Every structure is written in C-alpha cells, then in structure tokens.
C-alpha cells in the first residue's frame, strides 16, 4: 500500500529550492555589485598620494546586463560549441583538406559541386567529369547529380568553340551536343487551368531523355544567335511523395493531359540574344533582350504539335558607385497547339518558385501562356576585402499570371503579386546562395537556393 505524498512534503522541497535559487541569485548580484578592486590598481609605490580613487568597471550597468546574460547563456553555450568545432576544423585542417582534395580532383578533370538540378529539385551533389569548356578547343564532359529529393540527372556534353579574333569582337562560333537522362520523383501538380481546380495538389514522377545539338554564332560584340535541334522522350507516372496523393488518384484521367503516356518530340528552335554592357557582378548592370522560338513535332498517337515563343528582357540600372541597382525583368511565354491531339501537361509553361513567383511552390500555376514582370532593388551590404565575395540584399515585387489564351492574358484577371526581401551571399560573381522571404495571397514562404553559374 502506497501512501500518497503529503502536501507538506511538497512544501518542504519547493521552498528549499526556491531559497537556494534566491541565495545564488542574490550572491551573484552581490558579487557583481561589490566594489572589488581591479587588478593592477594597487597604488604606485612612487606615489605620495592617491586621490579621486575609485574602482572602474563595476556599476549599475552590470546589474542591468545580468538578466540578459542569463537569458543568452544557452546561446553562449551554442557559440562555444561552434567555436570548438571551428577550432577542431582548423586544427585538423578540414577546409584545407577539402580544398586540397578538390584541387586534386580538378586536376583529374573531376569537378564536384553542390547544386540544384533545375527548379524545384532541391539541393544536391553533382560531379562533372572532363576538362572545362573553352573556346578554340574541342571539349567534352560528363555530369551527374542527385538531390535530397532523390532526383537524379546524367548528362554528357561535347562541344567545340572557335575563338573570336579579339575577345568580344568579331565572329565567334560554337557547337555543342549533349545527351541527358533525368529522373524526377515527386514534382508537384497543381492543376492546369480551366479544366481542373488550380488549388488541387498532387504529385507525379517524370523520366526524360533528351538529345540536343546546338549551334552558336556570336555575330558582333553584343549579339548571339543560337539554333538547336533536340529529340526528347518523356514518361510521367505516379509520384512517390507520401504526403501528397499521386496525380492519377485525384484527377479524372481525361483532365491529366498525357499522364502515363510516353511522349516523343523532335524540336527545332532558334534564339537571338542582345546584351548591352551586361555584367554579372555581385550587383548586376546593363541590359539584355532575348527572343526564342521552338517548334515541337509530336511523334506519337494523340500527341499534338505545338509551337513556343519566348521573349524576355532585363534592364539593370546600377548606380551609387555600382553599390546599388534597380532591376527590371519581364518575360512572356506562349504555347500554341497545331492541329488535334494533346500537349503533355509538364510541357506547358508554369509560374511559381524562386525564379518566378517566389511566394508560391514551384510550378504552382501552369497554362498555355505566362507573363511575368519583376522589379527588384538590390544593394550591396558587405564586400570582402579581397573583393571576391559579397552579401547583397534586395527588395522585390513580382507580378505574373498564366492564361489559356491571349484574351485571358490581356485581361490580367488571374494576376498574382508577390513581394519580399532577399539576402544573397556570393563566393564569386556567379556562385552563391540566396535566402528570400516572399509574401503573396497564400501567405509567406521562405526559399533557399544555391546560385551556381547563374
């Protein structure tokens, strides 16, 4: 038989603890406040007198600071842990070892990196095999990568570049051929326009094989023309994200264009790009215009031929000794079906994600046409003494909409606005990471992306 603890027993322990705590607290205060002589303040043996004597450094401010010191003590412990780790890393030369092995791998033509394998794929590890591409040489490499979402990609590229007579002037010619295998496990599917509910969320898997040939012609200093031909084969299937239903479980099959089918396309495309003073510095400057068109010839039953037209332009007004910049970027994309059949849903343009509407998930909105406009104010807040790295902060406003036809596009009835702030850390002009907080009608969203060669 167990006796219930008496209330007095509780009362006996608790006051003791309370008194002990009070005692510690009061003693601490007393020690802080007491006029302890400072070291080195003993009177000078040569003195004949010491006047205006007082012990420095101990006063009421210490009492004010004390509660904050107690509150931040856990942070301090975390800091000490960090210091210990930093000390251990520097003692064991971990950064130097990483750099050393990286150099050794580079010498063998192996370039490991942290990167993303496209929008919404998450961060992962990638490795490239082969010498770096350079003008005037035949080059080739193999690249493989896998992300935390278990997406993977395998790419082989060969190319040849003819160096211009003078850098940036005259003609330049380049050729590139590549083959790529992609597997994406759990891309999100949000419905694709008027035939499905835009807010229905599911996921799907996609396997693609792409073979591409590209010819590049740099005509004058700022103009580049590209022509390419590619063959692709893709197959969609059930996604494996356990938190989301697979796309085929919630949509009628008729609403999921070409779901589960194997699609083959032969595509021909061309693009023209004009740049004026564009520089990929930490704070970008200059302007650019890019026009691209592509014809996609469906090779299979029920597969529609379609054309794509893409136009984008950017203007980066740098000022205040290149410390700040006002950036305007606009992009339009339209898809036109030719004849009967269906365009696979994943080939339609989409908005959402860090590069378009950052307050929404990747490919949140998908339809035949998209329009996007972004205004961003960027400013440098820190530059490394060696000028090799920097922190760039920014504010941005983005507006974009998807539309089923041009009349929808012009009505701006489905426009979505996002706004936000971002902080980018660069370890080189094109290598870094961006943390952004974006808001829209579906709430706030935090995005973190690696910027590699962007």
């Amino acid at each position, binding site marked *: 038989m167990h006796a219930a603890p008496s209330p007095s027993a509780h009362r006996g322990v608790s006051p003791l603890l309370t*008194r002990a705590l*009070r005692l510690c*607290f*009061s003693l601490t*205060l*007393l020690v*802080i*406040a*007491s*006029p302890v002589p*400072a*070291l*080195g*303040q*003993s*009177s*000078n*043996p*040569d*003195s*004949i*007198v*010491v006047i*205006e004597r*007082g*012990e*420095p*450094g101990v*006063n*009421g*401010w210490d*009492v*004010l600071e004390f509660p*904050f010191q107690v509150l*931040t003590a856990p*942070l301090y412990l975390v800091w000490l842990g*960090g*210091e210990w780790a*930093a*000390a251990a890393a*520097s*003692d*064991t*030369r971990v950064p*130097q*070892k990483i*750099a*050393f092995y990286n150099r050794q791998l580079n010498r063998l033509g192996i370039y490991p990196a942290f990167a993303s394998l496209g929008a919404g794929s998450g961060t992962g590890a990638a490795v490239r095999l082969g010498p770096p591409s350079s003008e005037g040489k035949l080059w080739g490499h193999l690249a493989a990568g896998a992300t935390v979402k278990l997406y993977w990609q395998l790419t082989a590229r060969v190319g040849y570049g003819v160096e211009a007579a003078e850098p940036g002037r005259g003609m330049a010619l380049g050729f590139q051929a590549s083959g790529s295998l992609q597997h994406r496990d759990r891309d999100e599917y949000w419905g694709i326009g008027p035939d499905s509910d835009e807010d229905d969320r599911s996921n799907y898997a996609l396997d693609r094989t792409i073979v591409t040939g590209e010819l590049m012609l740099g005509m004058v200093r700022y103009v580049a023309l590209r022509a390419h031909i590619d063959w692709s084969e893709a197959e969609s299937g059930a996604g494996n994200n356990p938190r989301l239903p697979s796309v085929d479980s919630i949509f009628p099959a008729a609403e999921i264009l070409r779901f589960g089918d194997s699609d083959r396309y032969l595509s021909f495309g061309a693009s023209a790009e004009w740049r004026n003073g564009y520089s990929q510095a930490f704070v970008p400057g200059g302007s650019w215009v890019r026009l691209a068109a592509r014809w996609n010839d469906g090779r299979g039953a029920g597969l529609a031929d379609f054309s794509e037209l893409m136009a984008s332009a950017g203007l980066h007004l740098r000022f*205040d000794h290149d*410390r700040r910049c006002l950036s305007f970027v606009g992009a339009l994309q339209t898809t036109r079906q030719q004849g009967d059949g269906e365009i696979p849903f994943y080939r339609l343009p989409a908005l959402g994600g860090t590069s378009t509407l950052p307050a929404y998930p990747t490919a949140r909105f998908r339809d035949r046409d998209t329009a996007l406009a972004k205004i961003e*104010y960027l*400013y*440098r*807040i*820190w*530059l*490394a*003494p060696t000028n090799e790295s920097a*922190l760039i902060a920014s*504010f941005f406003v983005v507006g974009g909409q998807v539309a089923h036809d041009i009349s929808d596009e012009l009505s701006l009835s489905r426009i979505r606005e996002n706004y936000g702030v971002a902080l980018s850390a660069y370890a080189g002009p094109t290598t870094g990471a961006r943390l952004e907080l974006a808001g829209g009608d579906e709430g706030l969203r935090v995005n973190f992306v690696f910027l590699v060669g962007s």
Partner: protein
Amino acid sequence: MRNKAWPEYLVVIAVVATSVTCSKNTLVVHDGTHRPTDAPPQLTQPPQERDPNATVDFFEHAVREPLTYVFIPPRALRSWWEEKVEAYNPTAEDDVENSTWFTHRNDRQRMTAAEVARGPGDGLGPDVSGSWTVFSAKLEGITPGLFVRDAAGVSYLIKFDPSGHAELMSAAEAITARLLHASGYFVPEVSVTYFDPAQLRAGEGLTYENALGREQPVDDDILQQFLRALPSGPDGRVRAIASRLLPGTLGPFNYKGTRSDDPADTIPHEHRRELRGLYVLAAWLNHLDTKQHNSMDVLVEESGRRYVVHYLIDFGSSLGSAGIGPNTPRKGVEHDADLGATAARWFTAGFYARSWERYPGGSTHPSVGFYSADLFDPGGWRNNYRNPAFANRTIRDGYWGAKLVASFDEEQIRAAVSAGQLSDRAAQEALVQAISARRDLTVAYWFSRVTPLESPGLQGSAQTPQLAFQDLAVAERIVPPAGRRYEVDFEFDAARIRHSGIQEPLITEEGYGTLAIPPPPADAAFWQRLAELPVEQRIARLEIRAVPQPDADRPRSVRFYLLPVPANGYRIVGRAY
C-alpha cells in the same frame, strides 16, 4: 515574511552599492620624476607556451563580441552612455613608465635618422657571405616562408613578396617595424635582404607540412624548385624580408586579460595605456593585422633574473600591403567583417555607405599599394578585426599615442622608409609623403581633442605664481599662437580659493607661454593649518581648457594638481588630460 523579502533587500543593497562605486578614474600623483616602477619580479617557474586558435580568435572578436551588443541591449546603451574607463597604468604625468611592454625612445630623446633606419639590432639582416641552412619550411599556402640559419649561425624567418607585387610586403614590414621600434615598442630585428638561391641548403631531416598537415621531406632539389618559382632580379638574387627569430618564445599575448602564469602581468591588457595607445600608431601606419597572433611573449634571462618581454611581430599587413597583395581603399575604413556597417547598410536599404565605397582612387605604385591620407580618419580607423585594447581606448590614450607619432619628423620618416629598399624612387617618395601626411592628420586630430599643454613648470614668485607650458597644438601649427585663449579654473579648498576666468597669454611660435594662478595665502596660520591636513586635502586643482576655434569641438581640459610649498608657492604633483 522576512525570509521572503531578504533577496529584495539585497537587490536594493546591490543597486546602492553600485551607485556609490560608480567608476571614477584613479589619479596617481607623485613628485614628477620618472622611475622604473614596472620592474618585473623574478620568475620562479617559466610560463607555459600559449597557442591560441586563430579561427576562434577571429570569431570571438569579429562576431561574438559585436553580437553581444544585440543580445544584451543594455550593453549597447552602456557603450553609448557611459564614459570608458581610463587606462590603469598612467603615471602622474599621464604617461607610462618604461617596462617590459614599452620603452620611451624617440619621444624622450630624439633618435638620429641612422638610428631610426637601423631599428632594433644592427639592421644588417642575415649574413649573405656564406651558405644558409634551411631548418624548417612552409612551402605551400598564401604566405610561404623559410626558417634559415645564416653563415654566422643566426636564425631568421624569411618571407617573400606576393606574386605580382615585388617589394610590397617586405618594404611595409621593414618600415613599420622601424617606426614602431622608434616609438618605443619591442619588435624583432627585421630587414630586407637579397640572397642567391644557390646559397640555400636543406638542413638534415628538413620537412615541410603540406596542406593536409602531413610532413613531407625536403631535399635541395625540392628547395631549389621552390626558390626558382620566386621572382628574382637580373642578377638572380631573390628579395625577401628576414625577421630574426626571438629566443625563448612563449606564444602571443592576448589583448584582453592577463597572463596568469606571469606574476608581473597584473594589469589587464585591454587597460594598458601602451596597448590602447598603440591604436594611434597602428592607424597611422595602417597596421591592420593587430591581433594577438601578431604578438609574442619572450622569456628573457638577464643577470640571473627571468622575466617576460612583450613583442609586436609581423607587420606584413601594414602601410599599403595586405600581406597577400596590395591594400584596397576599404582597408582601414572598415573591419573585414564589420557587423555594424553591414547592418547599417542593410537596414538603410544601402543608403548608408562608408567613405571607401564612394572613393574613386586606388593604389598608384604596385610596390606601395593603397596607402593614402585621403580616406584616413585618425579616430575612426579600423584594423582587420576588433582588438579589445583598441576598443577600450579613450581620448587620453589617443593623445598619448599621438605624442609618439608627433615625435617623428620627415627626416626620420624618410630614414625608416629607406629601410624598405624600394627600387622605384617615385614610389619611395610617395610613401614618405603619405606617412608624413597621415602623421599630420593624426597629430591634428588628437591634439585638438585635448588641451595639449606639456612641459609644465612653475615660474614667478610665491606671491605671483605662473604656470609655464608648451602648447603642442600651437607648436604643431594646428592653431595659431595669436588669440589662443584658455578657460582657467582654480580650486584650492584648503585655502577656500576658487577662481575662474579666461586668459589670453602671449604664446610663442613654438607654443611656449604662461598662465597666472592665484597664490596660496601668505599667513603663517594657514600653513600651520595646512600641515595638519592629510596630504590629499592639501592639493589644489588647476583646470585649463583651450577655447576652441569657432568651428572646432570643445577639447578636454588638462588638470594640474598643485601641492602648496611655503617658499615657492606650489609644486606640480600630477596632471591628467
């Protein structure tokens, strides 16, 4: 009830105690003679060697300490509201005694140009007449170096200029070492040297630590391969900076706290006048890398006594050199990781900018780098990352350092620069002019913040006493002698004398002048009564403040403490700025 209330009483007691012990500055007064009082006691046990981690030191001072102002808001308020505590070790003349930290040199006894150029030691550097034996090597990394024993058996650390910037680092190191030595600090013997690579031999069992921390053997072939990669002159000789190795090294001293195993080290380093005042010299010379790892404690044994001497070492990141390349205008204006400036830019959307960000200029001579008076702010200069002693500096410390800087004239600066052996005459002259210009800015800045009356003495009779002085602001041509006025406050409680007024004495071009002060009472009863008082109650206080120029800030006053003396009127027993 009483039990519940007693902690609250303690809080009240604590607050009262703190209010009555609010900091006041200690003032030590004595008879005005300089006597070595910081003589180190005999060490019974040699101190342990310190080896602090450089990464931890950086994060501690560059990140954690600044962040405490965010996480502990009263500290930010305190730094703004509360006056900083003055240094603990000033003498009655507001100076420091010669010690194992500092020895008065050029400010007390003008050094000749040859003495400045020689620096510590003989100034000759390693003996190049014979072969050198390399006994340790660092062949990889940003700043490779060799430890060699020269033909005379003396050991040196040999370092090389960064690629593409011949003479840059070596000249900066040689020049800065000489000027700091002449100022009074302990520095190793540092010299520019030229040697033939063929005279170097790999010592027996020589290894170097590769990037992975593994020891790799080095033979003569590997050594020559390394030396061949270095830039050399037409005669094949390689230029380097040779720093004579200090014997008995104990590792660096921290700029905060004391060394627990050195009984002579009783004054917290952040409160040492010599280290706080070093800020002014570091700013003048753009000595950016003033961290604890660029200091060295050395155990000295002399006449059977052992004590620790504190050295400054490694001046490769000074003047226009960043050690691994030339300085940019950013250096000296902002810490490498300046959280305050970064936050200010962030929260003002980039409208806030430091001076370097809108400065169009850059370095003009590759062998000098960027070292200019253009962006130089003597009171706002910043080293690579926060130094606790520098952070605690007060105007008094700054004035003390500025007097050291002011002790150099152009001839001495030219002599120090000649030790850099710059081959480009124009670069050498540009450097002399830049050092001189920064000297003038430094002196003007700090001398304007105090009432810089020096060399005080009492003149006149016991009934018409006068304070004679030299006004350094006039002597340095910062203000003209004509029209220089002073607010004079005299308090002599024991004699019930209080007198205030403005005086405009006649001041010479060199700054010499006198101020009248009230005499002590002549009656015998006063002197009898005075003799019965404790000595601290006999002292009169004379506070003098220069009346600033119309567009200048009000400077701090100088206070002289006067002890009445029957025959002479008064005797000066102390002063503070």
